[in-house]
């Protein structure tokens, strides 16, 4: 997806980092096994987070395997995967497919069209297995497109669409955990959408393209508004996490929710500030 929901490596122990890495590699391995090279391209940190989260919540048995991968063929690494990883892999395909369709609709990008075509048959199977999630992704991608075309400026409303989409993805099964997971997914989705829009703001303004932050841009306290807004989203997501009775991999999950998600934001801010310092950008 967007890659914001990731770890802050500096604050993890080596062991915790390697464990996180093993989930990432396990997801990559599963995507490759089920969906080949194209499948692997749908891998992201955001879905890796989901994988770690659900694995910790359900505490289902995980296979552990030493493997090599195309990107780093010289070193062996550990892969961890289980039923939850299979589910997460399917969600990766779903999200990427609809993103491709949406991009193709917007920019007529040939790459997006090819990507979508390559994934279509898999999506059909996934849709049969997970109709609720597939409907959620399909409907919300369409709805978001509509809202953006209409120039909707209400932050809650627009971000809430991605929120609702992610909320359903986070609900693995219709069981006793679904509401907490839905809440977590919803607010994380809102965070991700708003963060992505914030990062693209300058570019969108230049190109005259839609951006949900455009209306607020001229405010003197714009930067404070952005940070406060993003914090409000993460705080709700974190709240939901704290309510879940998760006792495994809590350091990794908390690292992501309280620190890692801010990595790109801080880097983007540093970049803007240094450009300002050089008298550029603003």
């Amino acid at each position, binding site marked *: 997806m967007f890659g914001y929901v990731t770890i802050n490596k500096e604050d993890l122990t080596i062991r915790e980092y390697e464990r996180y890495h093993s989930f990432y590699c396990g997801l990559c391995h599963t995507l490759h096994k089920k969906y080949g090279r194209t499948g692997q391209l749908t891998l992201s940190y955001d879905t890796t987070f989901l994988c770690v989260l659900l694995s910790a919540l359900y505490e289902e048995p995980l296979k552990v395997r030493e493997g090599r991968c195309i990107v780093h063929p010289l070193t062996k690494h550990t892969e961890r995967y289980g039923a939850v990883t299979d589910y997460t892999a399917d969600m990766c395909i779903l999200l990427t497919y609809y993103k491709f369709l949406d991009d193709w609709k917007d920019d007529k990008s040939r790459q997006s069209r090819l990507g979508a075509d390559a994934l279509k048959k898999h999506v059909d199977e996934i849709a049969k297995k997970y109709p609720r999630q597939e409907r959620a992704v399909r409907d919300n991608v369409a709805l978001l497109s509509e809202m953006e075309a209409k120039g909707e400026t209400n932050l809650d409303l627009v971000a809430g669409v991605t*929120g609702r989409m992610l909320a359903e993805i986070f609900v693995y099964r219709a069981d006793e955990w679904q*509401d907490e997971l839905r809440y977590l997914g919803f607010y994380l989705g809102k965070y991700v959408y708003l963060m992505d829009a914030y990062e693209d703001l300058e570019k969108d303004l230049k190109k005259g393209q839609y951006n949900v932050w455009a209306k607020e841009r001229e405010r003197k306290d714009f930067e404070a508004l952005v940070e406060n807004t993003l914090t409000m*989203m993460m*705080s709700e997501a974190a709240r939901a996490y*704290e*309510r879940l009775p998760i006792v495994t991999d809590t350091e990794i999950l908390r690292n992501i929710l309280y*620190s890692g998600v801010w*990595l790109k934001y801080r880097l983007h801010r540093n970049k803007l500030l240094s450009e300002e310092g050089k008298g550029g950008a603003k």
Partner: protein
Amino acid sequence: MIVDPYKVLGIPDTATDEELKKRYRELSKKYHPDANLGNMEAAEERFKEIQEAYRQITDARERGESGYGRVTPGYTPDRNYSSGYRPGQGAYGGTAYQYQKKPQQEGDRRTYAEYEDPYFGFGDFFTRWQQSQAQNTAGAGASYKTYGSGVEAAAKYIHENRYDEAIRALGAVTLAKRDAYWYFVAAIAHQGAGNNLTAVEFAKRAADMEPGNTKYRDLLRLLQSSGQRYETRGKNYGEVGAGATWCLSMIALNLLCNCC
């Protein structure tokens, strides 16, 4: 409400959050109906009680209170959740799209009406948000009454966790007639619907319009409290270095970077 939730879980009220969670997991597994096929009904009863106890304790701890916290309504997860997702009716302009579910039986959920709570029990948004996700909006059947429009109608919808309808009811009030109380009720409705930014904005408006009103100040403080808790916890983590770039960080992580 359970009088002694700690007793239900069999732990002292000094148990750490981790001990609480571990115990809850243990008991959930033990009494999950799927694990008690020969005795499903009794197991289910106990399971619900355990869930309720856990939720109550979690709510109270979240509010920073010791003991049993404020009264919250019971929550029954809808195990009959079907994949009946479809976007709700209505245009934009403040309404949220909602999931549709099969109608629940009358009496499955206790409503706020049973509790003496001038704040509509707003101290527990989480449970209320959950319950609103279990709603079936108008047209699904006789289980749900309609209350028309206006602030009082909205309050009734809020009592039943029907936030989407509350927002619609509030929308019928003309701008000129929107007083502090309107903003107060609207803040609660929007928070319930997941529009947390709007909720804070409206709570601020209510508090500004009637500065002496402690109820409005309390709501604003409550809505902002999770942000504060989050920032406190966030302080445990280090700052990102000024010279770092995204791709360098990702290379350091040794991970596949799809962006460059």
